[in-house]
């Protein structure tokens, strides 16, 4: 019982610490970590998003970064057209959702690895289209985005502002994820992941629910993309390569499929590790960063094949 109570408070303590951190960073000589933390947060959002598709519904998606790209470019293009920044974020989410729903309608009848390769194909199609449609996206030269400083009253440092904004988004994402997970809808998804036929013959409209999970994912990616574009004030196709999709899949699987805490830890480790090495490794070792990164992937997988924090099911009170 005590342990359960401690666990209940852990997320709130973590959130509080994370929220206070950027204001202490300067004294800790760790401003760099505010930036890194923000980037980790963006990938937490991406991981939370993909967790609906891959973690809950068990649909293998290797092109998820396309929706991050769509979010980023929608935001950039909208803001350049004079749309206010918050509205641009809403547009980004809606656009990602719409494209994702259309894609899902066409390809979701494919199974397993066939779905993986088709989503990978879509990821590349999206990136190449962005790179080739110079008239709309300015092609490889990228688009500048006007600065938006939503939390200027808290800090003049844009890194701190976006760190906090992203933290709010992540916290919201975690709450939304856990609430949906622990409901009829979440149970339906996990049932589909575990056994599609049994799920259907238990009364779950499998195709609708797959489409739902697949689509909801894009809201997170679109929001993350929009925040990314606003923070960097610049978007280019180079940010949305296949490797990034693999990274997000790795975050979800390495963290623990379907486990919200797992996704957060997965992003912390996989996205945090290379920049920390950049900071802490001496010049002679800088080339080894991604060699170590690969080693981490292999070793963690071998020692924790179910993920760092595998999902655990909620325990019900049985003695009533």
């Amino acid at each position: 019982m005590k342990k359960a109570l401690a666990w209940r408070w852990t997320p709130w303590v973590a959130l509080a610490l994370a929220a206070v951190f950027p204001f202490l960073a300067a004294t800790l000589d760790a401003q760099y970590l505010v930036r890194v933390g923000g980037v980790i947060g963006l990938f937490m959002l991406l991981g939370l998003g993909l967790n609906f598709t891959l973690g809950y519904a068990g649909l293998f998606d290797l092109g998820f970064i396309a929706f991050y790209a769509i979010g980023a470019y929608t935001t950039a293009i909208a803001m350049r057209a004079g749309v206010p920044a918050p509205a641009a974020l809403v547009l980004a989410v809606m656009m990602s959702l719409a494209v994702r729903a259309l894609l899902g309608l066409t390809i979701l009848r494919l199974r397993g690895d066939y779905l993986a390769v088709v989503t990978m194909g879509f990821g590349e199609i999206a990136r190449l289209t962005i790179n080739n449609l110079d008239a709309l996206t300015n092609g490889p030269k990228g688009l500048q985005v006007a600065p938006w400083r939503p939390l200027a009253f808290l800090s003049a440092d844009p890194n701190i502002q976006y760190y906090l904004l992203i933290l709010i988004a992540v916290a919201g994402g975690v709450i939304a994820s856990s609430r949906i997970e622990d409901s009829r809808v979440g149970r339906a998804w996990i049932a589909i992941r575990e056994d599609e036929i049994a799920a259907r013959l238990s009364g779950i409209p499998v195709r609708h629910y797959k489409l739902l999970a697949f689509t909801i994912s894009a809201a997170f990616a679109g929001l993350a993309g929009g925040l990314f574009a606003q923070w960097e004030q610049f978007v280019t196709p180079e940010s949305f390569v296949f490797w990034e999709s693999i990274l997000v899949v790795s975050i979800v699987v390495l963290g623990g499929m379907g486990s919200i805490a797992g996704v957060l830890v997965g992003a912390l480790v996989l996205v945090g590790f290379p920049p920390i090495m950049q900071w802490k490794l001496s010049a002679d070792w800088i080339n080894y960063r991604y060699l170590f990164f690969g080693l981490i992937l292999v070793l963690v997988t071998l020692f924790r094949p179910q993920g760092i924090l595998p999902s655990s099911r909620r325990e019900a009170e049985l003695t009533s």
Partner: protein
Amino acid sequence: MSASKTPPARVLLEVKDLAQHFGGLKAVDQVNLTIHEGEIVSVIGPNGAGKTTFFNVLTGVYPGTRGQILFNGQELRGMAGHDIVAIGVARTFQNIRLFAHMTALENVMVGRHTRTHQFLLGPLLRTAAFKNEEKAVEVMAKELLEFVGLKSLGNELAKNLPYGAQRKLEIARSLASEPKLLILDEPTAGMNPTESQDLVALVRKVRERGVTVLLIEHQMRVVMDISDRVFVFDYGVKIAEGKPREVVANARVIEAYLGKEGAS
């Protein structure tokens, strides 16, 4: 051949000239049968007789090639599997299909899907309606676990349950959708006599809840014990039906089971 008595109750399921062909293979062909409300009916037949295929057509896994399936007068053919559950037909599987990484309780709660309504907004905002529904689902699921005798195992992951318990859990899950017709595919497969007895008792209890039961069964002792009526399948065709005693005495049935020599 069919029993020529006055019907004991209302017709629940009426299958007319049903067929399921796979290319040239007639897995199910020309099946006509009727099931009445409140009955326990067994389907028997040698391996490969088309029993499971028949169940699969009934529950929408296969589309069927021809014929009609009328459930309470409503055509099931062409209906999606989950809609069939919604109008009151639930089933279990020959090779147990539980949601392995969910708890026993959650497995049953999933079975409640068609009888609940809360979608995204309710859970997101934790509305009162959502909380009430969740509470009700949980209460019902616990009640069902108790009903099948798994009360204390509710928090175990389904994959960690003993074999017999998994079978019972599947039944609890199907009951959660409040079916009028429960279809059990070899519920006693792999069980020892005591466990089988246990299950027979459970099936009777299910009927007492007002649920009609259709099952595939191999253990003749169970069939004789439990069934009101029996259908016999061979090569995809229904070759006999009747009360258990009548069917066992039927020459064609003996032939199907033992070959020509046995029949003569």
